[in-house]
């Protein structure tokens, strides 16, 4: 059985995560999306270095002028004479930050909550999931407007409001996944060994439900960005002179006949980002669950 124990050094195994990563990097659309998204993110981070203008600097000579390479306003200026290019990059900061932070909040709360509800089942599950149903039934816009009225307009409120809503779906997804694996034999083996429930949830349940969670996460980010844009469009989002893609699109939409560039450029950035996230989500789904193709 044991032929002289072979070579003594240990062989590295190929984890399912590593297999998934290899499959993901074979997906051209996903890789392309990651590159574009990476460029947009880097541009957002290094925004001040990329333009001679400040995002709130008014250039009195060029009010609502179209794109022009000679004066440096490559995407044109808005109605207040501010450079659109730098404003789009600052808008990217807000939109991407909202997307990532709100999604992380929803991830942490949703995964823990869903895994606990699904794992324990029975009455605990019923109570926990009915609570989710109740929160679901709250009208979201009403909730956000109330927050804004009570606490004033604040970017952190948007994070909280979006995170508080997004974790509900995450919790449902994780609960469903947990229900399907909690009767698996490796969970039973852990029980038989005497592993505590807490450790079973974090060591055995959550790593095995992360696949769908990651996929859902990449689809939540664009959803959150869209919602933030929608809130800003309604005037409930970020405060002037700070901006987001939603605000820029809203302003552009008002003057669509006179100056199309004010709508087209921010809308292109938003659409591109959403496309990228969706392609990455698609690629991740194929990579993490090759059977579902």
């Amino acid at each position, binding site marked *: *059985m*044991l032929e002289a*124990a*072979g*070579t*003594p*050094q*240990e*062989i*590295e*195994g*190929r*984890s*399912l*995560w590593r297999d998934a990563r290899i499959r993901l990097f074979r997906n051209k659309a996903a890789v392309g999306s990651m590159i574009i998204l990476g460029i947009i993110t880097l541009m957002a981070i290094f925004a001040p270095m990329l333009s001679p203008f400040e995002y709130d600097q008014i250039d009195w000579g060029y009010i609502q002028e179209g794109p022009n390479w000679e004066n440096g306003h490559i995407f044109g200026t808005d109605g207040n004479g501010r450079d659109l290019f730098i404003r789009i990059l600052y808008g990217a900061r807000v939109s991407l930050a909202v997307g990532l932070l709100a999604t992380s909040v929803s991830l942490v709360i949703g995964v823990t909550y869903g895994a606990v509800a699904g794992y324990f089942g029975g009455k605990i599950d019923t109570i926990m999931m009915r609570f989710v149903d109740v929160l679901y039934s709250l009208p979201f816009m009403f909730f956000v407007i109330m927050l804004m009225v009570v606490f004033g307009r604040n970017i952190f409120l948007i994070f909280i409001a979006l995170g508080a809503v997004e974790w509900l779906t995450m919790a449902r997804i994780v609960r469903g996944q947990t229900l399907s694996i909690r009767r*698996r*034999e*490796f969970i*039973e*083996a*852990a*029980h*038989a*060994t*005497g*592993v505590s429930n807490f*450790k079973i949830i974090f*060591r*055995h349940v959550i*790593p*095995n439900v992360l696949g769908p969670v990651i996929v859902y996460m990449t689809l939540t980010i664009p959803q959150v960005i869209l919602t933030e844009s929608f809130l800003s469009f309604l005037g409930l989002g970020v405060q002037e002179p700070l901006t987001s893609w939603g605000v820029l699109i809203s302003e552009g939409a008002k003057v669509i006949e006179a100056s199309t560039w004010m709508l087209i450029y921010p809308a292109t950035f938003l659409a591109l980002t959403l496309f990228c996230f969706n392609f990455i989500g698609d690629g991740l789904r194929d990579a993490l669950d090759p059977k579902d193709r």
Partner: protein
Amino acid sequence: MNAIGKKKAVPILSVRDLKVHFTLSGTGLFGKERKLKAVDGINFDLFPGETLGIVGESGCGKSTLGRAILQLIPPTDGQVIWLGRDIVGAPHSAMQPLRRDLQIIFQDPLASLNPRMTIGEIIAEPLVTHKADLGKEEIKARVKRMMARVGLLPQMINRYPHEFSGGQCQRIGIARAMILEPKLIICDEPVSALDVSIQAQIVNLLQELQREFDLSLIFISHDLSIVRHICHRILVLYLGNVMELADRDSIYAAPKHPYTKALISAVPIPDPEIERNKERIVLTGDLPSPTNPPSGCVFRTRCPFAKDVCATDIPTVDTINDHHQVACHFHERM
């Protein structure tokens, strides 16, 4: 390995009148709740170093019985006496130290291993849980020693379960069960999912380990040839009830229960001459629903020898001699 000699010893495990009933919610709004009697009053003793085979067809409560002994499914009634102590309904804190002596091996080798963990982590989990004071190096050394013992190359320690074949996965499952050197392992159809050639290897491995560590095994199976090979005593279950409990030689030579007779006559013999001429008892019909078991003797609906008394009286488990018990009204005539 004389099972009769072992009988004088103190049993390591005694199961007394063990019952596991599941409540099924009724159908429709006013449907009545029904009781599913998966295990309905089972008694047996298990001695140190002994292998007890539990046989029966699908749905007769074999696996439920195994899990009820480990308290993975809470028994409805009865006692499970482990080393002189009843563990039914014991709180989590009291069960925890006992779990290191009670282990289980599962039917589906791959499903019983967490796909996200390396096999080193899987095998080490019982150690990490029960002997937290051991250092990382010591744990790794023990895992490697156990891997070598069950016939796995120790340098495979960082591999993942999907990189192994079914037989190797079952060896990993055995290594996990053995790492704490338990006193009892419940083998829940450990070889049913494997090829015949691999089955023999796994069964032989279990026997070697049993001799080496003086293990007791409860071997759940529906394969009578393997049970005959590995078990010292055999318990025949039907619809959650004991039909017959006897030493291996006694039960194969002279089965006293019509159900056991039918099961044994169904085992193929690798000699076409004998196979063709042997008397075969074919049972008609299917296993009755355990939610609505037959009155009297549960086996009477399929029994070729059933009489009126079988429908009215539940047969008692009669002791024929020291190593043979049977639950049939007419066992003297069999």
